[in-house]
């Protein structure tokens, strides 16, 4: 009993301190809100927002609700994060492997890239791309077409839009291809474990991914047309492209700087992962007669991935959080649309900031739960 009491003391003091601080804050918040005549509540979410957003993935204008504005911001955040993650992964893996190259020049070039981009604040890079580099692009009327169909101008990148007929059949064909690939992979693994035979899974997968959608074009009646952007004159000196998809320069600058910056960290993760696999592993694999490709596929990568994936997921998370810097260049992401404009209009500081933080928090906590699960799954089963 005595022992327990000794344990209870410090805990009680800590909890008391936390409760006191929070109580103090809530009390003050109540008093302040009463004094200023603000009431607390989330009812404003269904009110009409009456502000416009420049770029949104879903239909939105001033007559929609604040909740829809929140969704617009969230989707924009997710869009830029996904683009950034894809680009950063590709670049990061290439640079990470290049840093391990025996070629002196490639090695140093990759090292220079990493040292250069990761020692400059991300915000500065975003400003640089948005205010300095992308401002040097031509005006819409002077733009040279890229590959004849898309235009990179100071007002953004204009690419052709896809116009689908029977899109759902195309979609189903891709889903079917993916399911077939998973089945084949499982089967191939079983065959390999029982009979030791290797099946060319990669070739079959690529073939399936190509053939099934192609069949949907030939048999399923899927049609694809391109809507090429066309230059249109708004006023004597003002031009804009119509039709197609337009990516605003804010999105381009943000995705570019996010991926260039995060790629440096991913490159370091990849390098550390591959270096983390002991030299003995490679030699042992080679000595039992595996080919270099098999060594890479069956021995090195499974072990390297175990080291690479957790910190890389962390970097993805960082990228998503860093995408909130969009507010600095007026890309309408969650922070700008919701914690910026909506907060200005409603004045509901506590509600809006807490919703914004909670959104990011749930995003990162769900990713870290996933990561922990994955970590447990791939961890070496020690006895």
């Amino acid at each position: 009993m005595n022992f327990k009491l000794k344990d209870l003391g410090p805990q009680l003091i800590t909890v008391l301190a936390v409760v006191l601080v929070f109580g103090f804050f809530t009390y003050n918040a109540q008093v302040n809100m009463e004094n200023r005549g603000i009431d607390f509540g989330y009812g404003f979410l269904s009110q009409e927002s009456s502000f416009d957003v420049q770029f949104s993935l879903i239909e939105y204008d001033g007559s929609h609700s604040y909740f829809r504005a929140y969704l617009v911001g969230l989707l924009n955040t997710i869009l830029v994060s996904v683009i950034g993650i894809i680009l950063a992964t590709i670049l990061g893996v290439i640079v990470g492997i290049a840093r391990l190259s025996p070629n002196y020049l490639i090695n140093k070039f990759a090292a220079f890239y990493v040292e250069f981009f990761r020692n400059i604040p991300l915000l500065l890079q975003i400003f640089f791309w948005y205010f300095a580099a992308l401002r040097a692009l031509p005006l819409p009327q002077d733009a040279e077409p890229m590959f004849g169909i898309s235009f990179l101008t100071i007002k953004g990148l204009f690419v052709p839009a896809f116009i689908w007929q029977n899109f759902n059949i195309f979609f189903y064909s891709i889903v079917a291809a993916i399911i077939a690939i998973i089945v084949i992979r499982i089967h191939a693994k079983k065959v390999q474990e029982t009979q030791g035979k290797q099946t060319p899974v990669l070739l079959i997968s690529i073939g399936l991914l190509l053939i099934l959608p192609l069949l949907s074009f030939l048999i399923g009646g899927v049609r694809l047309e391109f809507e090429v952007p066309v230059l249109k004159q708004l006023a004597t000196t003002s031009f804009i492209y119509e039709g197609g998809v337009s990516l605003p320069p804010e999105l381009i600058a943000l995705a570019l700087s996010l991926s260039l910056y995060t790629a440096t960290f991913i490159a370091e993760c990849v390098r550390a992962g591959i270096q983390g696999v002991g030299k003995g592993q490679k030699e042992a694999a080679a000595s039992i007669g595996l080919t270099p490709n098999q060594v890479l596929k069956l021995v090195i990568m499974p072990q390297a991935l175990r080291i690479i994936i957790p910190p890389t997921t962390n970097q993805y998370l960082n990228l998503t959080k860093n995408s909130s810097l969009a507010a600095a260049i007026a890309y309408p992401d969650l922070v700008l649309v919701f914690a910026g404009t909506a907060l200005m209009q409603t004045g509901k500081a506590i509600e809006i900031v807490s919703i914004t933080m909670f959104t990011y928090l749930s995003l990162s906590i769900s990713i870290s739960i996933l990561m922990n699960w994955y970590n447990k799954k791939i961890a070496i089963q020690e006895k």
Partner: protein
Amino acid sequence: MSKINFLKPDKSNLYTFLYLGTFLFFVSVLDVLLNSFFSLNITGFLPDFLSFLLPLIIGFIGLYFIRIELSGIKQLDLLNKHINTNNFNAVLSLLIIFIILKSIPPILNWFFVEASFAGDSKDVCTGSGACWTYIKVWMRRFMYGMYPNGEQWRINLSFIALALLGSVGYFATDRFKKYLTLYYVVIYPFIAFLFIFFFISGGPVFFDFSYGIIAAILSIIIGFFIPNKFKFYYFLIVPFGLYILLKYFIFYEELIELGKLDGLNWVETGAWGGLSLTFIISFFCLIFCFPIGMAFALGRRSGFPLIRYISIGFIEFWRGVPLITVLFMSAVMFPMFLPADFFIDKLVRCIIAISLFEAAYVAEVIRGGLQALPRGQYEAAKSLGMGYWRMHIFVILPQALKLVIPGIANTFLALVKDTPLIFVVGLLEIVGMLNLAKTNPEWLGFAMEGYVFAAIIFWIICYAMSKYSYNLEEKYKTDR
């Protein structure tokens, strides 16, 4: 068969291939060199496509010819080993050499040759290069923000003094080495705080500071004549006594006049800015986030479940949200949580917010170090009869912190790189000042120069920090 053998370089006809390959390689490099530096195209008579690819092809053949294993020539073997191991590597090496050659002239032109340095107005910037005049004219703003020009010596003096005080550790003799930790953890931050609060901020509070300085100097001078036996008690009592004596009894009126130093004006924190603000914020956040982070790292490993859950909650909360929303919170939400008449300065709120945010990251890094220590260390310390605090201070933390030096350095680097975000609350450090200067109607169109300038400064700071952390890591690396 003999034909293939003839084309395949080996030792028997080494010099033929060596001369031929070197010649071809140098021709390709020369072509690109002339092209980029003197815009001469010696292959201009060929079709565009061929003329573009020719250096690559020639260089590739050249490198293929000189790829002779074990030639016995040291330089050649070295070259082959480093940039010319196989066809793929040869092409990549050539591409990188060409890219470097191609990009040097435009960069040099922009930075130096075509750039304008002289003058103090926009009119001198007519060339196609950078306009460093812009940086020169705006230098004071970029360094000190809106701090009044006449008062900027205060910032300079404070930084110089703090740098000198900070370098004390290098000159300390063995006798004082053991007090260094105390000095850097407690005394130095306190002095820095006094400097920044009373000297850079200035104003009426400066009186107190001057009493303190006078009391300290007087007591140190008298201290030389005090026998060693009583020195400890002397320094414990006399400076504070002198301070109170000076402040309340002697020289009261006279010292107010002295303390004023003819107008150390109060400069509100809203006017601070530029690179000096970056330093101030980084410095304080760095000092505060470390102990907070350490406390939460210990809390997360504590045996008390309630303390552990509170620590986990704290860490995961700050790690889960972006810094920009934290700053938003400190700007718009935090004032609501305080009594109406209670005002906390914007800069202080910012420093608190960033410190708490980075503390969560520091906590995770330190936890990594704590977890990496073998259990034997804990058990050995306990078996010597050490309690929780003594065990951690003398056995666990010194080893754990040594392990996590790179992680801590990365967190501090992230902190320095995060300071520009304070634009959210309206404080303008160097990047914010750049954005302000960019919109000045007299100086439109020099965004590039400004960002390059700031990028160079940040790069130097961050690179120096990362190299320093690497040195520290090497210094404290002890074999186990």
